[in-house]
């Protein structure tokens, strides 16, 4: 008997005749000891399955038909008390945000104890059981750890605690919803390794939900690719990643910049995944409007799942499958602009020290060095990447460059003119040359401004005597340049998708024609296919305007794709810097090598993840 089996599971949103199907006829099986990867971008419905199991569907959503069998019993129709008995015991969850999943006012020991009490461990044994479980996930000194509070641990450690809790009851099934998305690359590798090992040792079935196809193909036995609530492709992980057959799976793979090999321009799909409200208008294949090889029949009838190999099925019609191969192979080579202009930004030996808090005698604590003597130069038309994990000081560097923070020592010059943080003259120099694109478009766009007034916000500043007509014209040309439809001018940020918001964010920075953009993690919150669109947009902007870019990211593959030069930061130190190709093909510093090893490689023969590092 399969541990988990979905049979034609359909989830609808809202009531009435023609309601959108958020999940359509979903079928899969997970056997004991197997890992099934659910892969899809945001809006694909991948988290719905976890919600069906936990019976926590959003209001208005319900299972319309089909069944979800856990060890033979249907979870959909199960009485609530019997389901509650299963959850946390036979079925366990590993959440996405480890820090918010733990109660900040209880110690790890208290929370672990509560969980063990729930699964019937007698009081006297709980502490020893908890310590043993923490040792199992390779956490050092588990006894001391039990007396700590969650905020005293790193995100990776919290996630390991949660993994230990999930496995404590020897569950038959574990649902892991994006368990590594909130973590750093190297922590991700460790956490994945631990989940995989625990799962193998305990013979647990695992449902691994992720947006990262590359990661999923390394972790899972089987893959199931979802698009807008439909299964588009399902099969053994090795087959799906080596030879994806559905145009969407191919596009996902092609949108992911590689960490090695030849540079090709990323192939992007037009537009984005349709929202739930648009589902009812799509009668056939929901991917058809974006499909590079769609033919008229796709849009009228839902194609069946066709077998293409052993256990490998694809929801696509025969002719398209043949053409899909042609469409993605023809990706043009990446053109790098090598015309370097004059140096715009010079940063010499810049440091930032945050003084510690004063104690009651007025003595200062040790404080922290966020950046220790960084040197960077960026010329017009040059893309420079800054890579590092969280806490490496890369965002502080961006703030120092933009004048949002005052450096403790060192010198920053723009066009050869030295600038300090906040005096009017420095501000004037910066405004003419530099602009910043913020990380989180949600927070960076004032929700009370329509798009037109957002992208041309700079024109409201003093010294810009523009008429409304000029302003509108400027907004239109900026929209055109960043690939946004002029129809969006009257929209507000809440009415835009994530990718559109990030484009507006970029358009706003371009308004006063800067020569250098500082971009802090601008693609980290985006889906892979939207990320590819934004990356290509930045390359196009360089070709059209010759702007320079200081690109801050934790994603090595993105930096490799985009940047000419790269610097690697660790704890405020620049540990390695040089031309991108050189650094990536021959990393010298052990930290750079460790970072690169933590990224799942393209080549399926390379073993990954690497051995767990004790922490």
């Amino acid at each position, binding site marked *: 008997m399969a541990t988990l089996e979905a049979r034609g599971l359909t989830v609808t949103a809202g009531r009435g005749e023609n309601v959108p199907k958020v999940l359509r006829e979903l079928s899969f099986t997970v056997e004991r000891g197997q890992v099934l990867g659910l892969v899809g971008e945001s809006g694909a419905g991948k988290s719905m399955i976890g919600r069906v199991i936990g019976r926590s569907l959003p*209001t208005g959503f319900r299972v319309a038909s089909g069944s979800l069998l856990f060890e033979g019993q249907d979870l959909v129709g199960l009485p609530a008390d019997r389901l509650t008995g299963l959850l946390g015991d036979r079925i366990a969850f590993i959440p996405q945000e480890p820090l918010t999943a733990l109660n900040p006012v209880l110690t790890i020991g208290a929370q672990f104890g509560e969980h063990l009490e729930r699964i019937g461990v007698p009081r006297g044994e709980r502490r020893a059981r908890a310590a043993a479980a923490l040792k199992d996930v390779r956490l050092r000194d588990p006894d001391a750890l039990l007396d700590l509070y969650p905020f005293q641990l790193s995100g990776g450690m919290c996630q390991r605690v949660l993994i230990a809790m999930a496995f404590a009851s020897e569950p038959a099934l574990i649902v892991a919803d994006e368990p590594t998305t909130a973590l750093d690359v190297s922590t991700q590798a460790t956490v994945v390794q631990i989940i995989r090992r625990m799962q193998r040792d305990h013979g647990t079935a695992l449902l691994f939900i992720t947006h990262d196809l590359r990661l999923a193909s390394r972790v899972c036995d089987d893959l199931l690719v979802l698009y807008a609530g439909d299964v588009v492709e399902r099969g053994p992980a090795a087959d799906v990643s080596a030879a994806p057959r559905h145009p969407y799976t191919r596009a996902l793979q092609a949108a992911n910049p590689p960490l090695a090999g030849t540079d090709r321009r990323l192939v992007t799909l037009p537009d984005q995944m349709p929202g739930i409200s648009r589902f009812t208008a799509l009668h056939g294949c929901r991917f058809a409007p974006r499909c590079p090889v769609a033919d008229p029949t796709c849009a009228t009838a839902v194609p069946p799942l066709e077998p293409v190999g052993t256990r490998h099925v694809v929801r696509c019609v025969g002719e398209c499958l043949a053409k899909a191969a042609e469409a993605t192979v023809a990706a043009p080579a990446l053109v790098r602009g090598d015309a370097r202009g004059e140096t715009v930004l010079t940063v010499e030996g810049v440091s930032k020290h945050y003084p510690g808090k004063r104690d009651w005698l007025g003595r200062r604590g040790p404080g922290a060095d966020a950046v220790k003597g960084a040197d960077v130069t960026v010329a017009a038309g040059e893309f420079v990447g800054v890579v590092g994990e969280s806490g490496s000081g890369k965002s502080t560097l961006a703030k120092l460059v933009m004048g949002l923070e005052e450096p403790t020592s060192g010198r920053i010059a723009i066009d050869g003119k030295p600038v300090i943080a906040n005096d009017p003259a420095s501000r004037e120099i910066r405004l003419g040359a530099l602009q910043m694109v913020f990380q989180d478009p949600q927070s960076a766009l004032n929700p009370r401004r329509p798009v037109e007034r957002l992208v041309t916000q700079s024109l409201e500043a003093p010294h810009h005597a523009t008429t409304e007509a000029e302003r509108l014209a400027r907004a239109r040309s900026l929209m055109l340049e960043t690939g946004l439809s002029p129809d969006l001018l009257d929209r507000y940020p809440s009415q835009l998708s994530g990718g559109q918001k990030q484009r507006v964010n970029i358009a*706003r920075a371009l308004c006063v024609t800067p020569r250098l953009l500082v971009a802090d993690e601008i693609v980290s919150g985006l889906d892979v296919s939207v990320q590819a669109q934004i990356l290509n947009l930045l390359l196009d902007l360089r070709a059209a305007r010759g702007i320079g870019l200081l690109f801050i990211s934790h994603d090595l593959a993105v930096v490799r794709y985009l940047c000419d030069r790269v610097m690697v930061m660790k704890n405020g130190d620049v540990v390695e810097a040089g031309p991108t190709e050189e650094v990536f093909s021959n990393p010298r510093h052990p930290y750079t090598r460790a970072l690169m090893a933590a990224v799942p490689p393209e080549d399926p023969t390379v073993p990954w993840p690497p051995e767990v590092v004790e922490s």
Partner: protein
Amino acid sequence: MSPRTRAALLRCARNPRVMAGLLLALAVIVVALGAPWIAPHDPQEQDLLNTLLPPMWSAGGDPAFPLGTDTLGRCILSRLIYGARVALYVAFVAATGAMLLGTVLALISGYFGGWVDWIIGRLVDIWMAFPPVILALILLVGMGAGVNKVILAIVLIGWTRFCRVIRSEVIVVRRRDYVAAARLAGFTHVQTIVKEVLPAVLPLVITLFSLEMGIAVIVEAIMSFVGLSVEPDVAAWGVMIADARTTMNQAPWGVVMPVAAIFATVLAFNLLGDGLRRALDPRLVTSRESL
């Protein structure tokens, strides 16, 4: 109108507290503005033959004086209607003053932070530690009685509430990237505050304003009760209670009626304020609509 504003208005319109408070407050406002046309008598007109009449529906009542008369034979209804003018005048002007003073200081304090924030914060602490009734009495004794002095007293007491609450909201907004983005777009500090920060805290300001109006109505009633507010020849609710309290045993309605008027007005503003808080507070709204 942005969809956010529209959604907020819609939430207000659907909120029973907001609508009940708004209707009640509007009724009081209409009565106050239309006093000369609505009131059956002049509020100071004495009819010494008809003193201490009960309301018209009880035995011995006179339809010419619908809510009865006081010790001097003045029409209670007419005095209530004219009293609403005093109450609303004080409520509106005092709440506006407290709002302006408190909000401006809160914006400066929360936006600039550092020592500016420290000084304003300590000022509020010291101010709030001083008993408000004593402060008001000292002011009124020192400057003499009068409606405008009462307003000044309410402003000087009420601004701290605005300052405290709005400052914490300004600090939240200040940390949003769009405020930094506005500075990088070349906005001056004043522009950034007015165009980016203020609109975000405006719902909270409106909510506090409504609650402050209710408080001002009560303070005015207390002050006119002890004779420190309006001139003796002006009808105010507090004055009416003070006048009627000596004959409370024979004619309880002389006290009950103005108390009911104060009750209804304060209830209106509090319902409105509480409803607006529920409808506009981003934390309460998102928790309900995020799913």
